[in-house]
């Protein structure tokens, strides 16, 4: 509760310092929430004091609390970064409040225990993201926004249709009550059909194969700070919602639904990484890499066993942070190198060795080079796949890692290692404050990546507990509805 009120308070005040204060507050509230949840188990709160299956509930379990913390961390880093990189016109048009609304929507979506409420949070998040994407209004930006907008409206229609069917079948929208009702559902009820509605809706949101085309068309168009928060968090909300749906609600026919997810995950990984290899522009390469790594997370869901889900959740944590870092670094590269396109960059290693290191570390972490943070969840996922006898999937996952490394090294070679092109324009050097505001958040996120790598044991233990909660919906149902009958 504290979280939401803090953000809402920040919303109304059009001022960057208050926005920063709001996100710092969010960070502390999220930390407090996570420790409470991890000590006391799932928390549930009835809004407006309507008893559980009738009113709207907010539920904080371990997976949700972890995601709120991630949102808070990335939100704060992006806001700090924005103070130095967002132009005045955008600030005047309410850039900071929009970011805060976006964060509100995300936290709401992570914590809600009601399906229709989830829809409302999604829309809140969407409208803020539309505005952030379109602010500025260059030609490419508008083109990207139109596609993003059309697809997301389509998602809303699908989502709403699915909600309608579910309500018609069970007469409830509370996720816990739904879970109970659907467990008792006989084969004559079209639960799996409805599940497909949700799979499509969240699949588009999460940029899963074959529904990912909007992402590389739009993510590289807005300012880097916006791209970073989108890349770090927005698609993850889709993945989160999908994991939630397919562990809590739709587990009637796992052979079919999760099998479909498995195939989707493999194709997502492959097509994403092949797209990344084919690109020559930093932010496009990164956009395609988001897609391929969404594949890993969905893979963890598709395997549907504690080890795999724990790995997926670990991957989620790692990916949010690393992706945001990489986008922020690409912004600095553009600032000091004058371009995002590899053909026009070069020689940055000579001029900015520190920046080169800042790029190299998260890039290696992304591709899963040990002992950085991407390695551990990949190891866990591979282990889970091999236990299930899915050798082919494991091979695909390894191949994708390799290709990721290849695409990241292409940026490294193109931007940092190669000779500077002759016609290079040298932009104005960074001022002291600007430098601190740009590098500070990147350094902090990087420190976090390294911390996750070093303390991978405790993090993994946490995600394992999160996976336990996901796979035992009974806990969730009891927390929301009470011990009951």
């Amino acid at each position, binding site marked *: 509760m504290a979280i939401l009120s803090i953000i809402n308070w920040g919303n109304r005040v059009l001022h960057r310092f208050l926005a920063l204060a709001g996100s710092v507050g969010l960070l502390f509230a999220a930390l407090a929430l996570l420790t409470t949840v991890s000590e006391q188990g799932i928390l549930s709160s009835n809004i407006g004091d309507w008893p559980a299956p009738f009113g709207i509930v907010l539920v904080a379990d371990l997976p949700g609390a972890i995601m709120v913390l991630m949102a808070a961390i990335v939100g704060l880093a992006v806001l700090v970064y924005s103070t130095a990189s967002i132009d005045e016109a955008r600030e005047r048009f309410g850039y900071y409040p929009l970011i805060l609304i976006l964060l509100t929507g995300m936290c709401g979506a992570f914590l809600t225990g009601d399906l229709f409420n989830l829809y409302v949070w999604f829309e809140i998040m969407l*409208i803020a993201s539309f505005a952030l994407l*379109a602010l500025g209004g260059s030609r490419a930006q508008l083109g990207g926004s139109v*596609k993003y907008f059309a697809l997301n*409206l389509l998602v809303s229609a699908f989502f709403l249709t699915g909600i309608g069917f579910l*309500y018609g079948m069970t007469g409830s929208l509370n996720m816990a009550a739904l879970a109970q009702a659907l467990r008792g559902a006989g084969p004559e009820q079209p639960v799996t059909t409805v599940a497909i509605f949700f799979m499509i809706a969240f699949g588009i949101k999460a940029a899963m194969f074959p529904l990912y085309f909007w992402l590389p068309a739009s993510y590289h168009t807005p300012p880097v700070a916006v791209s970073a928060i989108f890349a770090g968090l927005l698609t993850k909300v889709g993945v989160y919602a999908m994991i939630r749906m397919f562990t809590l609600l739709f587990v009637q026919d796992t052979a079919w639904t999760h099998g479909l997810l498995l195939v989707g995950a493999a194709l997502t990984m492959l097509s994403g990484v092949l797209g990344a290899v084919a690109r020559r*522009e930093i932010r496009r390469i990164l956009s395609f890499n988001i897609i391929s790594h969404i594949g890993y997370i969905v893979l963890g869901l598709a395997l549907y066993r504690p080890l795999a889900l724990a790995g997926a959740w670990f991957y989620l944590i790692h990916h949010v942070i690393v992706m945001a870092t990489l986008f922020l670094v690409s912004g600095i590269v553009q600032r000091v190198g004058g371009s995002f396109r590899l053909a026009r960059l070069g020689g940055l290693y000579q001029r900015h060795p520190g920046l080169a290191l800042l790029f190299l570390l998260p890039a290696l972490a992304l591709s899963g080079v040990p002992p950085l943070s991407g390695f551990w969840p990949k190891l866990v996922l591979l282990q889970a796949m091999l236990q299930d006898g899915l050798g082919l999937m494991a091979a695909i996952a390894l191949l994708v890692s390799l290709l990721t490394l290849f695409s990241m090294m292409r940026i490294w070679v193109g931007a940092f290692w190669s000779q500077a092109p002759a016609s290079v324009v040298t932009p104005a050097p960074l001022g002291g404050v600007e430098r601190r505001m740009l590098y500070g958040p990147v350094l902090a996120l990087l420190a976090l990546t390294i911390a996750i790598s070093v303390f991978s044991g405790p993090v993994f233990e946490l995600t394992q507990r999160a996976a336990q909660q996901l796979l035992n919906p009974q806990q969730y149902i009891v927390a929301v509805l009470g011990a009951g009958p």
Partner: protein
Amino acid sequence: MEVALAIVIGALYAAGLYMMLRRSMVKLIAGLVLLGYASNLLIFVVSRLTRASPPLVPEGAHSIAEPFADPVPQALILTAIVIGFGLQAFALVLVRRAYQAVNNDDLDQVTASDRPDLQA
């Protein structure tokens, strides 16, 4: 009545999807609007249609007599309509801005963000 509405909903979905497949941006928006209406109507129908029986507890009684209209879907639809309205308003402004930037209503002309040769 349900049958008639089911046909209407099907027609709305079909029309919406057809409009979305057109190249014109305005038709795209119109298609999305139709889809929104279709899903709203769908929620309305799945809650089973009842006529002239509001969900009010009669005086002196402790529960409502069947059949009564379920108020929850109507509340949901109301929310969805309001959200949809906001999104549609935004969509219209966005399309107008895109039209100004490209000077064309054709979606294929707005793909500048996808094509490397057209990028700044």
